[in-house]
């Protein structure tokens, strides 16, 4: 795990989340895990492949997700599951976007997958499998031995748990 890369994603995520939630964001104590594992009920996964490779996962409980969607949409129907999933995917895109741009500008070349949103759980991501759902190719999994940083981002509308598992050249 390259901490410079991880830090880029954490900073990007915290900055964007503060903007969309409209509240300050504080950070919990970071922890390390073997692989990303989402257990709050709604997760958005983005795979990175190339010079920077790995996974970034947002993990939120459904009530927090609905409050975030409410902030982001200005009061959309909280029971619209399609909009809920779509908004979480877009939030994941935005939360990593600044880091992706900065790393590209530093010369790193890699691709970013469209976000995949999972409901229910728990879901473990990595090494070509996700709790038996296996939506990933082997090439999109983090390298063997790459640890995952797990960090809770606390907002006024609830917690978003960020999992970052990336390695690079």
């Amino acid at each position, binding site marked *: 795990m390259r901490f410079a890369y991880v830090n880029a994603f954490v900073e990007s995520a915290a900055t*964007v989340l503060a*903007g*969309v939630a*409209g509240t300050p964001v504080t950070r919990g104590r970071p922890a390390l895990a073997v692989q990303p594992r989402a257990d709050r009920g709604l997760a958005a996964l983005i795979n990175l492949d190339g010079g920077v490779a790995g996974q970034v996962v947002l993990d939120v409980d459904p009530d927090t997700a609905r409050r975030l*969607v409410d*902030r*982001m*949409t*200005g009061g*959309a129907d909280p029971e619209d599951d*399609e*909009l809920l999933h*779509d*908004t979480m*995917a*877009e939030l994941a*895109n*935005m939360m*990593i*976007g*600044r880091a*992706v*741009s*900065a790393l*590209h*500008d530093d010369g790193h070349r890699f691709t*970013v997958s*469209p976000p995949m949103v999972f409901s229910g759980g728990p879901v473990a991501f990595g090494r070509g499998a996700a709790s038996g759902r296996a939506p990933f190719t082997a090439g999109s999994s983090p390298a063997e031995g790459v640890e995952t940083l797990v960090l809770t981002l606390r907002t006024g509308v609830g917690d978003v748990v960020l999992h970052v598992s990336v390695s690079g050249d």
Partner: protein
Amino acid sequence: MLTGIDAQDGARMPLAGPDGPRRVLVVDDSKFARGHVARIVAALGGEIVGEATTGAEAVARYAALRPDLVLMDITMPELDGVGAVEVIRRDDPAARIVMISSVSHQEMVKRAVELGAAHFLPKPVTVDLIAEVLADVFRQP
């Protein structure tokens, strides 16, 4: 997230054109993003005349609708936003297209601008930022 809408005044309505609301095509594969941009367009005095979810669809919708402005995402299936800019501007060199994307690294911005995009905005966009950019876009001949 529509920060600033309530505070705007009549002077900050760049989509309220002299002959009525400017006609806007919104292109994004995200339902949330289309809705968000549509609310901003309405707040700035514009009219959404169409939506598209892929670059290829954007090209077809542009040809059919000839809007005054296209607000275009980049990462989309079939044909991405930069590719769509290239096709649209080849057909209509006067097309006004503003890119809106989560990813905005220099290489991508340079490519889009070279192909004729008028501006490039990083997501999340706010009404204030779009208002400022569109005022500039519609000042251009």
